[in-house]
């Protein structure tokens, strides 16, 4: 038992010792500096040997042959290393032990200060003010109290002592700084253990759960009821926002508007708006016989595919027979770096085969009579030509948002999937945005969804339109925005705030509200005031007027009078 007690005492002495505290702090600071200077293993690679190997391979290009050694020494993953955690623990233990050891002394220093110093101190104190005269103690006490001192009058008839103390609790400033460091280290530990973050991609009108496990005890769902954005003339987003509804256990528990800088909060979780994508198409497929939905999804149009924007007039009447973007089939490599994409288009009562040849920075659209391929014209963007009584103009070849959807029901069963491409896409359709409407692809007019793969020719649908193919009805409900929501929970935030507040308090106490103690001795006509704590303060300037008011002439004035 005695051995354990002695061992505990030794450990405490070790931790309390300022030399060790300085060494530990310096070593941790140096290691942290290494961790900041050297590249560190990113979180996504941690725990996955393949990712670690790939990342180290990348680092070898920067750090050279030292990379494996740095990795073995743990210097490329400093902040996750157990020895770093151990070092931090030691530092915290040292700070706590030191702070704890100071508590009794600090308590006594603050609440039981020395009120009556030895007489010799009045003769030797570096900060000293002397004078002569019958001091009016009442005036002195009132004056000091007005200067926020707590004053006590002590002594006997022969000698009167005054003790004045200001901001005694400011002495706890350094202790607060130590506690702040401990709290901040604790915050880092809590953050590492408890922090949660998950990205969700949600379309307007869709719902996503926060946790992958359906019956998670803290399960919540996020619904994006609305999303909108404001864009500049080039289509770059200037500002975006969304309205979220948060559900828990089947009940709506929060509803709020989120922007990039103002997240929504519920149950300790924050819902940040992290991204905005304006290209999505809400599509429903129904059984025509029963009217029952068998598919209802908002499809993210993540691909960008070439879409020739064509105009065609009947030459005889001058009637505009076609205007719009054309959806093309999958590109086929045709050698020499060129690809060809095909489409079939009905214009002026006839079928036309379109072939877009792309490559080497150029693009040409070949238009041919589908029943007589020898009759064809080739157009570059901006060019026009006549063919088969139709005047063709290739306005532009733009990139249109598109997606291949594998699981959408088709009359022919599951094949290779349907190609969905949206033209007349606009950031700022009535549904998606209330901001500046900027047409990105296509011309004026509402967005048009082109479905390719439901038969031999594409189907173009405007919002709300229905196309019946076989036993199914295809309905395009409209363009929808997708937003990226980052759900985060970090209990350490409050600890960080608490640590920062303690740090600021300690700085304020130390630099702006230093403790100040005055002792005055009134012995006959001799008056002496000594001071501690007011480094850099001019005692004569501060207390001179008060002493004069109390009937005391300062020593210099006395000598001048003499």
């Amino acid at each position: 038992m005695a051995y354990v007690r002695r061992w505990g005492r030794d450990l405490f002495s070790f931790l309390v010792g300022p030399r060790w505290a300085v060494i530990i702090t310096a070593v941790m600071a140096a290691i942290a500096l290494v961790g900041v200077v050297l590249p560190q293993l990113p979180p996504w690679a941690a725990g996955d040997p393949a990712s670690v190997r790939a990342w180290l391979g990348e680092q070898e290009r920067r750090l050279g042959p030292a990379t494996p050694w740095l990795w073995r020494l743990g210097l490329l993953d400093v902040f996750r290393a157990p020895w770093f955690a151990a070092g931090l623990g030691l530092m915290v233990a040292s700070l706590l032990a030191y702070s704890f050891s100071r508590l009794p002394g600090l308590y006594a220093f603050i609440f039981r200060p020395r009120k009556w110093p030895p007489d010799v101190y009045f003769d030797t104190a570096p900060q000293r003010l002397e004078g002569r005269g019958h001091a009016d103690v009442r005036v002195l006490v009132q004056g000091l109290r007005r200067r926020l001192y707590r004053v006590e009058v002590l002594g006997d008839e022969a000698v009167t002592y005054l003790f004045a103390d200001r901001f005694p609790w400011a002495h706890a400033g350094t202790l607060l700084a130590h506690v702040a460091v401990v709290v901040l280290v604790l915050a880092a530990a809590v953050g590492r253990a408890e922090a949660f973050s998950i990205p969700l991609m949600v379309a307007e009108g869709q719902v996503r759960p926060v946790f992958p496990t359906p019956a998670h005890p803290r399960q919540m769902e996020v619904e994006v009821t609305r999303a909108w954005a404001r864009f500049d003339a080039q289509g770059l987003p200037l500002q975006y926002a969304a309205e979220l509804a948060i559900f828990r256990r089947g009940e709506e528990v929060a509803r709020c508007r989120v922007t990039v800088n103002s997240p929504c909060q519920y149950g300790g979780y924050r819902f940040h708006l992290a991204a905005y994508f304006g290209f999505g198409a809400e599509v429903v497929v129904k059984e025509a016989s029963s009217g029952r939905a068998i598919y209802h999804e908002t499809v993210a149009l993540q691909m960008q595919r070439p879409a020739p924007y064509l105009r065609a007039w009947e030459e005889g009447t001058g009637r505009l027979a076609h205007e719009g973007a054309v959806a093309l089939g999958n590109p086929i490599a045709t050698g020499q770096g060129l690809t060809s994409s095909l489409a079939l288009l009905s214009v002026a009562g006839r079928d036309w085969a379109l072939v877009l040849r792309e490559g080497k920075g150029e693009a040409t659209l070949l238009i041919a009579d589908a029943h007589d391929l020898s009759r064809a014209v080739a157009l570059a963007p901006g060019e026009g030509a006549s063919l088969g009584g139709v005047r063709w103009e290739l306005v532009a070849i733009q990139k249109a948002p598109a997606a291949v959807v594998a699981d959408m029901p088709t009359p022919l069963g599951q094949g290779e999937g349907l190609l969905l491409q949206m033209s007349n896409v606009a950031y700022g359709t009535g549904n998606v945005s209330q901001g500046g409407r900027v047409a990105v692809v296509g011309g004026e007019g509402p967005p048009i969804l082109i479905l390719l793969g439901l038969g031999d020719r594409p189907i173009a649908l405007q919002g709300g339109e229905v196309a019946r193919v076989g036993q199914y009805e295809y309905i395009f409900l409209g363009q929808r925005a997708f937003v990226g929501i980052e759900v985060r929970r970090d209990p350490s935030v409050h600890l960080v705030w608490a640590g920062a507040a303690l740090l600021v308090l300690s700085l304020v106490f130390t630099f702006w509200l230093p403790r100040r103690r005055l002792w005055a001795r009134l012995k006959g006509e001799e008056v002496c005031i000594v001071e501690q704590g007011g480094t850099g303060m001019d005692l004569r300037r501060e207390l001179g007027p008060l002493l004069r008011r109390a009937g005391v002439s300062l020593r210099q004035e006395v000598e001048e009078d003499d």
Partner: protein
Amino acid sequence: MRGSRALKGDLVRRAMIPLLTVAAIAFTIWWLEYRPRGGGEQALDAYGPVDLPPSLATPDREVAPREGALAPDFLLPTLEGKAVRLSDLRGKGVVINFWATWCPPCRKEMPQLVAAYQRYRKEGLEVVAVNVGEPEDRVRQFAEEFGMEFTVALDKIGAVARAYSLLGLPTTFFVDRQGVIRMVHAGAFKEQKEGLGVQEAIGASELEEGILQILR
């Protein structure tokens, strides 16, 4: 003696300030993180997992959410404003499908369940689609759009989903006429033949395989 007591009192006093500070910080953090915020904690004590009536239990089979065991009993509210208790369906083949509207595979397989129910209901098939944790109006809208004519139960707090040890959605339990789980299927059903529509695909899907097992 008195000195020792005074010293103890002094120590207690000295310790009180840091202890109270730590307690105040801990309480503040707890309050900010976990304070009750109202809503969502609806009392649903009557619903959830319930004990299997003794008359329906068999001594040689345990009650557990796995193949070969008796299906754990539950009582849940339905979209029609009634309640469904699994043990009341004893004598029928029951497909218990756990789902949610936000779950894409659940949405994908729902037309198959709808078609299977229409096809096999006369042979004694019951489908109980247990929605996990969603608002009733959202579930109703989805059920109407997809024409779900079978029982849609609402497991608002996920208690039944937990009792069935779900790891993901959708998960489907095939319970035979004796209340025994014959098959557990995690994930969406695959249609084994390509080139078939929804109705035709039923005859060749994993779903039908399970249904045929429980209707024997």
